[in-house]
């Protein structure tokens, strides 16, 4: 395939190595904060939170030599803007077989922006069970919070303007198989993926 | 009503011929020619209009007595006049049924009182339309209403022996049995034409054979007893073929087609809108084609409206719950122009035959259906074939609104209707 310069418009702020380092650091911080990985459950928020959660879990397992349960938590039906667009397709919710009751759940997402997704995820989690604690890990925090929510583990703080869009590409999901985080001009006024 | 007793119709084209003047006086056509002087007559400028003999409908439901919420003799005949009709035959399926001299005389009298068009009651063939016992056909024939057409329309005289007896009996007074050809067993619960579509829509099918089998049987019975059969609302290609064959054999069989069957097809049932629910049902495009051809070659003798008014609630419901039938008087001529004249299948003389001469002949109506000639009764319709009108249900002179043509653009408009020299419609409005 010929090189496609248009495939990555905008400015790349994290390349594959940067992303790998950020996830490794997050993994260590999680272990450190929780004094091990005993009661951990990682739940990725689809789509991009899920492969990130898997990568973090793999790194924790390497260090701690335990299997960390990973699942996914779809927040579609809990979104506060559900009625603003035609009905959206649901994404997978997979709760690891051990459940989440009494566990420390680490929610994993790619970009933390307004905080509304995380608000929805906390509501969704409430219907799944009662964890001992909930923590939040994100690859990028771009600011502009609209709710009192903050991340416990941040790969990179990225100051952005509202006229910009943060685009996260992950090898597991994208056809070109490249990890990258870039900042692009926002194409229109529509809502931005968090 | 106006007191003027004579009308000079200027430069009208009789049956679409050359423009001429027409003087109507004392109930008859007094003079025909160019440059006639008004001489006290009210002048009607008929430039561009066609004169047709007043139309005669052999198949109208006026609903009175019994369903005055749907139509009365007065409102029904007003609609008839707006459609260019000067005579209508009122079907017998009223409440009470027109199966005695008393009821047919009542309907006949109501028609005379309304004055918009002559009403000829149709007598029921069997008591209460029940198909069990002959009604007093002779008494109805001898009554003031002078009934000559007998029909259980809405119901088929399905018992072959009863049908034979009826055909025989009416010979005594030159009557005709107008059969609603529908085998009841083959159409139990039937809702629409039986076709691939009825199967898909889950509406019980109404097979063509249910009509054709009865027509074939009745043609044979008619030939056997030497009587007169009229087939109501022929709707299938097969029926046309059977009637054509009977005529070829010289049997005394006449047939009618309804305007809606000349235009609309069963595809409309896919809307589940009961405005399209009618008995017999709308059929396929091939059937429509065959009916037009049959009407053109004379196999189908006449167009009859089967004007069937129903109150709003009987159509504003689910298909199966709705009543059968649609309005027809005010749109019949336009549909015939659209489907037969504008397509080149029939000229205006042919239209006069199918909508006036022939139905009057079948119904044995003496004062209607005569050519526009000096001395003939002045029953005349003036029609503007160049006009186009958008049909509005709310504009109907009928008490009911169940027209399937609402919103359609149809050619032609009745500008005036004269009944025995007196206008019932003038300038397109009821007088």
């Amino acid at each position, binding site marked *: 395939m010929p090189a496609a310069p248009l495939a990555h418009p905008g400015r790349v702020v994290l390349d594959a190595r940067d992303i790998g380092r950020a996830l490794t650091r997050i993994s260590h911080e999680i272990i450190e904060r929780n004094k091990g990985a005993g009661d951990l459950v990682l739940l990725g928020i689809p789509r991009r939170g899920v492969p990130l959660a898997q990568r973090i879990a793999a790194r924790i397992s390497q260090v701690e030599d335990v299997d960390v349960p990973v699942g996914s938590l779809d927040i579609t*039906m809990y979104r506060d803007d559900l009625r603003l667009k035609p009905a959206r397709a649901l994404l997978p919710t997979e709760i690891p077989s051990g459940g989440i009751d009494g566990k420390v759940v680490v929610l994993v997402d790619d970009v933390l922006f307004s905080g509304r997704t995380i608000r929805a995820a906390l509501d969704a989690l409430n219907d799944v069970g009662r964890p001992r604690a909930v923590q939040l890990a994100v690859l990028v925090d771009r600011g502009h919070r609209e709710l009192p929510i903050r991340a416990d583990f941040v790969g990179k703080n990225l100051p952005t303007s509202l006229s910009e869009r943060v685009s996260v590409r992950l090898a597991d999901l994208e056809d070109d198989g490249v990890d990258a985080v870039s900042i692009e001009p926002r194409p229109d006024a529509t809502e931005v993926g968090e | 009503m106006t007191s003027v007793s004579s009308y000079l119709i200027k430069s009208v084209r009789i049956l679409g011929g050359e423009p001429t003047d027409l003087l109507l006086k004392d109930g008859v056509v007094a003079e025909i020619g160019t440059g006639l002087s008004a001489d006290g007559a009210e002048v009607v400028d008929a430039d561009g209009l066609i004169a047709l003999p007043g139309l005669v409908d052999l198949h109208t439901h006026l609903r009175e007595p019994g369903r005055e919420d749907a139509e009365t003799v007065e409102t029904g005949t007003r609609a008839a006049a707006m459609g260019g009709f000067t005579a209508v035959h009122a079907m017998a399926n009223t409440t009470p049924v027109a199966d005695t001299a008393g009821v047919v005389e009542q309907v006949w009298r109501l028609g005379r009182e309304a004055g918009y068009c002559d009403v000829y009651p149709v007598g029921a063939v069997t008591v209460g339309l029940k198909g069990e016992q002959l009604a007093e056909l002779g008494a109805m024939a001898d009554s003031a209403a002078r009934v000559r057409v007998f029909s259980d329309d809405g119901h088929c005289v399905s018992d072959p022996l009863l049908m034979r007896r009826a055909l025989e009996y009416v010979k005594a007074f030159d009557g005709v049995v107008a059969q609603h050809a529908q085998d009841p067993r083959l159409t139990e619960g039937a809702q629409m034409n039986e076709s691939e579509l009825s199967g*898909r829509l889950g509406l019980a099918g109404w097979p063509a054979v249910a009509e054709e089998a009865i027509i074939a049987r009745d043609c044979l019975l008619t030939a056997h007893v030497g009587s007169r059969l009229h087939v109501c609302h022929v709707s299938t290609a097969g029926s046309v073929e059977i009637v054509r064959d009977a005529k070829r054999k010289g049997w005394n069989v006449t047939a009618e087609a309804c305007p809606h069957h000349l235009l609309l097809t069963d595809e409309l049932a896919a809307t589940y809108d009961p405005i399209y629910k009618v008995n017999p049902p709308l059929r396929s495009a091939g059937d429509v084609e065959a009916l037009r051809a049959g009407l053109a070659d004379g196999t189908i003798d006449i167009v009859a409206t089967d004007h069937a008014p129903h109150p709003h609630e009987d159509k504003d419901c689910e298909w199966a719950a709705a009543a059968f039938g649609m309005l027809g008087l005010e749109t019949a001529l336009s549909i015939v122009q659209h489907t037969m004249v504008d397509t080149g299948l029939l000229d205006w003389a042919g239209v006069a035959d199918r909508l006036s001469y022939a139905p009057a002949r079948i119904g044995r109506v003496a004062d209607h259906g005569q050519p526009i000639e000096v001395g003939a009764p002045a029953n005349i319709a003036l029609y503007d074939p160049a006009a186009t009108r958008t049909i509005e249900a709310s504009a109907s002179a009928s008490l009911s609104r169940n027209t399937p043509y609402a919103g359609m653009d149809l050619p032609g408009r009745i500008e005036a209707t004269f009944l025995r020299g007196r206008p019932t419609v003038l300038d397109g409005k009821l007088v």
Partner: protein
Amino acid sequence: MKRHLLSAADLTRDDAELVLETAAELRSLADRPIKKLPALRGRTVVNLFFEDSTRTRISFEAAAKRLSADVINFAAKGSSVSKGESLKDTALTLEAMGADAVVIRHGASGAPHRLAHSGWVRSSVVNAGDGTHEHPTQALLDAFTLWRHLGEERRGGLEGRRVAIVGDVLHSRVARSNALLLKTLGAEVTLVGPPTLLPVGIEGWDVETSYDLDAVLPKVDAVMMLRVQRERMQGGFFPTPREYSRRYGLDGRRMATLQDHTIVMHPGPMVRGMEITADVADSDRSVIVEQVTNGVAVRMAVLYLLLGGSESESPE
């Protein structure tokens, strides 16, 4: 998706697959401690049942409640044919109550279509079975069941899978909706029954037909048996129930001629001993109980997709 679900023909392949995928996500809800999702909070779903059908009504009710909708059950027994309250007046009442969706079961074919297109109500209309016309959510749950058993591991879902639908096709809304939907999903459908119970014009349906059940059974991946209603037994469509069972019933002997992976379905309620014997209905091949479970998930998916988003961008 369109605003209403009146016929299986309203669904494109993309629509249908979206329903199935959504149902697959929602099915797992049954395993969770809280069997509720907030998607339809504040929405009102009316179950308008002119015919008795406890199982379909309960299925829709459970589906709507699990999505947090308010549910109003309106059992209008007896149809308007008998001059009770008319469909229109009932509809106007529901409109005044602010129904967002009307789930309607009616004895007259096309009644849901009338409800949706007559201007009586603004709500979405879901056909829960109309006369002898259609029952699209039954077809969706059947397709979902087929898909779980035959499709998921294969790309293309039900593409090329063979399904026989056996029995009273003429009067079956289930058969109509299934034939349409399974064709949309790429399956090959064979309608099997005595000639008296196959509709006129079925040649135009783009499905196979057969009068010979024994010839069809070894070739198919699924057999769907239709109920033979009591009133048909007197209708002269076949000589006797005995003869019907012998020619078109699924018994142990016939079941033995099926391929190993072939499943047996029935939309219920079954007439055991008539179209299906007890040993077949209770066998390992039978997915009849699972069909019921899947019904709730599929109806949740339909209600969510019709009501879960904004109304504006749903073209008619």
